[in-house]
């Protein structure tokens, strides 16, 4: 089902202009070409700026590339990435699961939500980092604390977004399901859950970002391993070319995760028509 594109697109020019203008026009119509061109432009800009400042301020792209290869070959970057991914994944998956289930339940059992909402909101409002000394006191210095920190980072945005979605379930569709004989469990499964799916995905998008921040901050401050620690180490020793290697890993991870969420959105919400494509 492809959606018709809206009249937001610029109308095509009646007569194709020649030379550079026509090349630009052609690129303007191709998303892939635009992505590649903007990437090249970014690298060129980086190179130009780095040639005019000290390498301590901004290393050249080539230096960063060399450092990235060296850190990969030595195994340091690979090990750090693995040490980062698994506690991140466990914390995020748990946060997503608990946040989604609790959000759905609180969305339909409103009296329970009225009791619990203040606690949840306080939990969400306290800056994550404020929990850290407490978690270290409770769970020690180790991966358990790290996972719990990632979990806390992910669970609140997921829970609040899903709860908001579940309680906005269309009352008319709920009544239709009731008229057909549906009980609370069937209504949850057939109406509330599917109508909350866009919110579940939106919550996931926020939770992923929060969990990424959580894992890096956690590694920096709790366990002194992984990508987070590489930031700290190469930052403090002013080895900026090497400092960029974990940055690239995080950037790639963030892009891949966002792609994953986009895929989930299309796969699980095929009925949604989109106004802008």
């Amino acid at each position, binding site marked *: 089902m492809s959606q018709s594109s809206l009249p937001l697109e610029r109308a095509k020019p009646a007569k194709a202009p020649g030379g550079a203008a026509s090349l630009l026009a052609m690129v303007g119509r191709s998303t892939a070409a635009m992505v590649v061109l903007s990437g090249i432009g970014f690298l060129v800009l980086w190179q130009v700026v780095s040639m005019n400042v000290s390498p301590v301020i901004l290393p050249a792209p080539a230096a960063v590339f060399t450092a990235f290869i060296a850190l990969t070959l030595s195994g340091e970057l690979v090990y750090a990435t693995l040490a980062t991914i698994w506690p991140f994944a466990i914390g995020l998956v748990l946060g997503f699961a608990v946040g989604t289930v609790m959000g759905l339940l609180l969305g339909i059992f409103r009296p329970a939500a009225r009791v619990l909402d203040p606690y949840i909101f306080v939990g969400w409002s306290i800056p994550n980092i404020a929990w850290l000394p407490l978690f270290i006191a409770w769970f020690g210095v180790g991966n358990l604390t790290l996972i719990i920190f990632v979990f806390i980072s992910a669970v609140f945005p997921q829970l609040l977004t899903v709860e908001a979605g579940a309680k906005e379930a269309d009352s008319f569709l709920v009544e239709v*399901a009731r008229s057909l004989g549906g009980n609370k469990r069937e209504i949850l499964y057939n109406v509330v859950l599917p109508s909350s799916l866009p919110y579940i995905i939106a919550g996931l998008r926020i939770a992923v970002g929060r969990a990424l921040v959580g894992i890096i901050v956690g590694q920096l401050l709790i366990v002194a391993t992984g990508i987070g620690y590489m930031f700290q180490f190469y930052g403090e020793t002013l080895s900026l070319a090497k400092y960029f290697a974990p940055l690239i890993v995080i950037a790639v991870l963030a892009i891949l995760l966002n792609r994953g969420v986009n895929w989930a959105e299309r796969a699980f919400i095929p*009925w949604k028509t989109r106004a802008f494509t």
Partner: protein
Amino acid sequence: MRELDFVNVRKSYASPAGDLLVALDDFTLTVDSGRFVTVVGPSGCGKTTLLRMAAGLLPPDEGGAIRLDGEPLAGPSPKMSMVFQGIGLMPWKSIFDNVALGLQLQAHRAKLTAEERERIAATLALVGLTGFERYYPHQLSGGMQQRVGLARALVRQPEILLMDEPFGALDAQTRTVLQDELLTLWGRIKSTVLFITHDLDEAIYLSDRVVIMSRRPGRIKQVLEVKLTRPRFSYDARAEPEFARLRHIAWQSIKEEL
């Protein structure tokens, strides 16, 4: 037996100002087995309230009673199906799954038997939607969507069919076509129908009896027996002198309530 009885049914709501607003009062009516009964009235006369109570979605005030085959109605009944003006298809379910939902919630069982799958296919064929099983509701026109709504109700093989202005949101041509289709379908299934509309033409054309309501608080003002022969065909039936006579009486009656 599949008879629906209303005895002294009344429904009041608390208004925002705090006083009692009576939507429907003193409503006593027997919808006989296998008959097509339509309730018409000005907007705000409690028609939809009446149908929601009949569907078991809303309890009547103390003192009144709704009985299904003599038994007091205690909630939505698997013997009934309701068709809504807003249709209420689940946007996330395919046409097939939307119709299946009618069965699944009736039997409280998510898994469909082979016989049930066949019945869904047959019902979709009945409303002329074979081939659209895998479509989503938003890909269908309004008239086709209401056919799905009808299929979801009929697949339950209801003894009583409740219809709340089902064609109210459709254009005039589609509405006429669906009225004819409804009569054809009803000729086969012969369930008891309680139909709500504000369209006098539609009421007389479809029904055995037309119940005219007063303005709020809605009370029964007049009951007309429609003696037009069946099967009826849209413009032929509407051209009969009896149709014009009933329409005149109904209009005189309802005009005072507007």
